[in-house]
């Protein structure tokens, strides 16, 4: 019996947590009384199935995902390049530091409102997400590079290991765990920012507009259905990151 429990505990714990959340939802919905304030799970799922029947449902998800992936890829690429160069050349690091600090300290809403004035509605959400995610990825990458075990670096130099080998066999494997950890956290954040910006920018073909449409007509079940979709997408993105991480690490070893 104990053996069986141990074998399935990876499933039992998350499942119990999910059951608890569900029970809490049912209770709160019953207490709230009104569909408009907090709809029951049944209302939300029935709304969700209605959404599945609409073709716009799929185009909205697709475009929002695309915006998320494009802005994330751009932020990640730039972060990797600049962080690596900053680790190599201290002057570059010193030059970039205040800029990164500026980006990090500017309130998100200021960035959003300004971007909406300057940019087209399709581009604005991606630009906003990029500005918020890039500093985080840059800092994580830079930190990971700097924190590579210096004794190993020393050892490589003593054994006159080639630069190429140092890069491939020491630096990259050391950086990957921290990097993937940062990617996982930031990609969900990226999705959230994109959706929020889509609402403010009134971007065509977006999940943000899908949510807003529900909201202005007080269709709270539909709004929560969209939210459920967003949550599932977040999980999928993080799971995708895990899968990529496992295969990259396997490749590296």
């Amino acid at each position: 019996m104990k053996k069986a429990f141990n074998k399935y505990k990876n499933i039992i714990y998350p499942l119990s947590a999910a059951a608890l959340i569900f029970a809490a939802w049912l209770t709160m919905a019953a207490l709230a009384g009104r569909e408009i304030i907090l709809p029951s799970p049944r209302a939300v799922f029935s709304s969700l199935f209605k959404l599945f029947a609409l073709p716009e449902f799929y185009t909205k998800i697709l475009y929002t995902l695309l915006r998320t992936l494009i802005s994330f890829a751009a932020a990640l690429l730039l972060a990797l390049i600049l962080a690596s160069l900053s680790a190599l050349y201290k002057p570059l690091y010193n030059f970039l530091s205040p800029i990164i600090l500026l980006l990090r300290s500017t309130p998100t809403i200021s960035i959003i409102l300004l971007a909406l004035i300057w940019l087209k509605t399709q581009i604005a959400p991606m630009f906003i997400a990029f500005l918020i995610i890039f500093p985080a990825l840059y800092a994580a990458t830079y930190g990971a590079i700097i924190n590579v075990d210096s004794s190993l670096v020393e050892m490589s130099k003593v054994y006159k290991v080639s630069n190429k080998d140092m890069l491939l066999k020491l630096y990259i494997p050391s950086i990957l765990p921290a990097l993937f950890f940062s990617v996982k956290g930031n990609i969900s954040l990226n999705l959230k920012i994109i959706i929020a910006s889509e609402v403010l920018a009134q971007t065509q073909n977006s999940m943000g507009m899908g949510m807003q449409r529900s909201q202005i007509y007080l269709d709270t079940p539909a709004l929560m259905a969209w939210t459920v979709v967003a949550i599932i997408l977040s999980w999928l993105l993080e799971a995708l990151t895990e899968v990529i991480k496992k295969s990259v690490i396997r490749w590296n070893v």
Partner: protein
Amino acid sequence: MKKLTAIIIGALMFVLMFTGCAKNDDVQIIMPSGAPALVFAQMMSENQSLADRDIEYQVVSGTNGIIAKLNELDIAVMPTNIAAKLYNSGEDIQMLSLNVHGVLYMAAPEEITDLNQLIGKTVYNIGQGGTPDITLRYILDHYDIDYTEDENDNDINDKVLLKFVQEGSTLVPMLISGKADYAVIGEPVISQAISKSEGRLVRALNIKDEWQKATGQPTYPQACVVAKKSFIDDNPEFINALIENLEKDVSLWIQNNIEKAQKAIKDNGGTMPPFTAQSVQNSNIEFLSAAEAKSSIEAYLNILINEIDGKLPSDGFYYTK
């Protein structure tokens, strides 16, 4: 001793927690800022009790503010389609009267005598999928004018291009700078935009009039006064007194007492863009009883039928004496 002090302070805090929730015997009248707040401006300024009941007014921001206070309100001003939706969702409300008959206009570089003038142009609107959007589309449909939201549409020159922003106030800098030429906005923002445009823009279309032309209906039912049915049943004299007050020409009073009206709204929590006597006049604030407004409302709700749970509100929605 320390422990005792802690217990006493804890008990005190616990008790104080509930004083904020003390039951208020005043009648709660809640409204969103903007033209709906004008409906009660005179009553707020004069702040008299009616049928021996004192009134507490709250001006909140937007429909969300009203929904948040659904439990505590007795009477509220809200967009007609929201009232219908709430009624269809089982809320215990009844519409007393239609009070805001259309505050939407189009600003443009020239007078529009024929809607075909909009073909090939870009028209900005507030809130995609919202009532101003659906209203404009209905009007365009009536004249068989094609429209699209897609800039890359092949037949763009034969259609009206519809673009959207979140808030009317976002359109003001766009209109002034020339980034936008045609826009549907509500009072009082449109008056602001036109006066700041230094003659470049005029009030080109009256959406209310266009709606009336397209539907043959006597009015455009923008916002109404609703009350909880239980409140109406318990307070018939109050409701009668309220309706008498609403029947007065509040619009004229506000135009003659602009500062008092602005102060009254501000004192009750509302933040409104500055309005002038002219913009008040353009806001079409006028009392129409629920019974008289019914046909206009049903015509309006028909085009929004999907957003109000697929059916028109039953007769019980409309208050009768």
